[in-house]
């Protein structure tokens, strides 16, 4: 297990480095920069600006400086659009917000999804089973950007129960709709996966043996069926985390929560490459690590996998 962890770490680090290098070159290959506008700047001014941001240096030197700043000081450099803010400020301001409701959505999706799936499998062909199946199907067609408008329509415009947007320091009224919008679709998928996995496990030989030796049903499920049931679910949790990250871009924009997604979309629209690059690298790194953790959890959970 330890060697496997070390090996995975050794793969993850070059992956992240490559990610940084690739996105860096991609950004610099783009025609036009943040300073190209309809009214071209005088060449002298442009040269001045470029030298301030180090854009007149050779590309490899720029890359080296950029990499070193990130690795040694976690410094993503200055924003190209905001003169008094650098990328770190923008991330520090937005990321905690995105992380808060992102984590909540992730937990809600996993907890409710798994519970629903397990109950549906235990009470196979009952109303709760049909409910879980229909939620699973509906989840496919109700991604976050569909759920958002529907929720606002019901809870803000119609019932007038919840505020239509904003953050307000993370008060619970402001958290409900983002969390529901972000988690519903994955909740449905998790429920579907858990249900079919549990059904398969409950039909297997070792469960029959456990029942045959007279174990109470509760113990059969908790002690024997639970672990193999959760295996496929765990491998889906990594992707869910990624979806929640990208979905948060929508939530930030639609519910005006002030998270990182808003800065991301704005920087994409105004071609503020520094912010775009910084956020992409941050999200990419997170993804690599979460995938690593899910793989490790999988290896730890699955008795058949020994590294």
């Amino acid at each position, binding site marked *: 297990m330890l060697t496997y962890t070390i090996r995975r770490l050794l*793969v993850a680090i070059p*992956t992240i480095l*490559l*990610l940084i290098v*690739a*996105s860096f070159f*991609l*950004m610099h*290959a*783009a025609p036009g920069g943040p300073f190209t506008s309809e009214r071209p700047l005088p060449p002298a001014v442009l040269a001045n600006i470029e030298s301030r941001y180090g854009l007149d240096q050779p590309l490899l030197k720029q890359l080296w400086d950029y990499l070193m700043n990130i690795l040694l000081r976690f410094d993503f450099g200055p924003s190209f659009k905001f003169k008094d803010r650098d990328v770190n400020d923008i991330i520090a301001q937005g990321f905690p917000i995105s992380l808060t409701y992102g984590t909540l959505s992730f937990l809600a999706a996993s907890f409710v999804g798994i519970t629903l799936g397990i109950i549906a499998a235990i009470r196979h062909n009952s109303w709760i089973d049909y409910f879980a199946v229909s939620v699973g*199907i509906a989840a*496919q*067609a*109700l*991604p*976050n*950007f*569909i759920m*958002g*408008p529907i929720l*606002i*329509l019901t809870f803000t*415009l119609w019932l007038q129960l919840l505020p239509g947007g904003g953050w307000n320091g993370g008060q619970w009224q402001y958290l409900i709709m983002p969390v529901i919008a972000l988690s519903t679709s994955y909740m449905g998928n998790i429920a579907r996966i858990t249900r079919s996995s549990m059904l398969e496990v409950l039909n297997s030989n070792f469960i029959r043996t456990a029942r045959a030796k007279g174990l109470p049903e509760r113990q059969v499920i908790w002690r024997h069926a639970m672990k193999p049931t959760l295996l496929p679910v765990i491998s889906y949790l990594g992707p869910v985390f*990624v979806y929640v*990250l*990208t979905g948060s*871009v*929508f939530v930030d*924009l*639609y519910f005006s929560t002030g998270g990182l997604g808003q800065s*991301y*979309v704005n920087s*994409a*629209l105004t*071609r503020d490459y520094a912010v*775009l690059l910084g956020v*992409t690298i941050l*999200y*990419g790194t997170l*993804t*690599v690590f979460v*995938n690593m953790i899910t793989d490790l959890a999988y290896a730890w959970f699955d008795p058949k996998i020994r590294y």
Partner: protein
Amino acid sequence: MFGKSAKSEALAGEITDYTAIQGRSLMHDARERFLRNKAAMACVIALGLIAVFVVFGPLVAQWSNEEIDWTAMGDVAVLGKPSISSGHFFGTDDLGRDLYSRTIQATRTSLLVGLIGASMALIVGTSYGVISGYYGGRLDNVMMRIVDILMAIPTTLVIILILVIAGRSFIALFIALGAVSWLTMSRIVRAQTMALKGREFIEAARASGVSETMIIIRHILPNLIGVVIVYASLLVPEMILAESFISFLGLGISEPQTSLGRLIAEGAGTMGYGTLWQLAYPLTFYVSIIITMFFIGDGLRDALDPKDR
């Protein structure tokens, strides 16, 4: 020995060498299974109706998708209502443009996006996976590490990145979708190719002197069709979803082009003003496309999945 009748004569006449030895191929089996699947067939019909609507809908449209109805624009909530008499069957959008024509245009975009994204995944992913899986060794290692790294970046961010860099056009969109969609496909194809590679009929082909390229074309690729079709069909709704998501954020293709995600975003932006149809129509089309696509993909998987046989 047998009595003779006109009927048996006719039957005997029908049996030729060709019909007598025709077996039931896997594809034939799969087709039959798919045709028996009621939910999937209903969805095929529903999707067909949507396609017919997209193709022939413009013929009955009273307004083009770019014309602005200035009278309706003055009071969208009242004059822009869906009605037969004004010619705006689905009402107008906030700028007085006919929503019927816009919905058709957007549905066409979304269907195209799904099909082109999936076919790019099909072409690139299959060739990449087959080469990696068939030749194996160090080449395979390098190719799969590349896929691993690319997979580590969230797909939506990649698409946004490419659209920002290459400009928000149709071609950039298709390139962006193609760039992210082939990754999983290549992994699936590689695994399948590696399993096929060790089978006896490949050995036999090699022993009888068939060239490597011919083995891939004649023996590997036809055996991959099932897996590839199933995965490609599941990719179609995923591509539509990704594109709609990006369009909703306003980072997708730009006006006058539109897509369902964009229309839903516009409808969602104005739903506070009593013009709910602006959200309802695009949403209905969107949800029906996604649901039918998923059911068709599911049906294809049931029909073609080797585990089920």
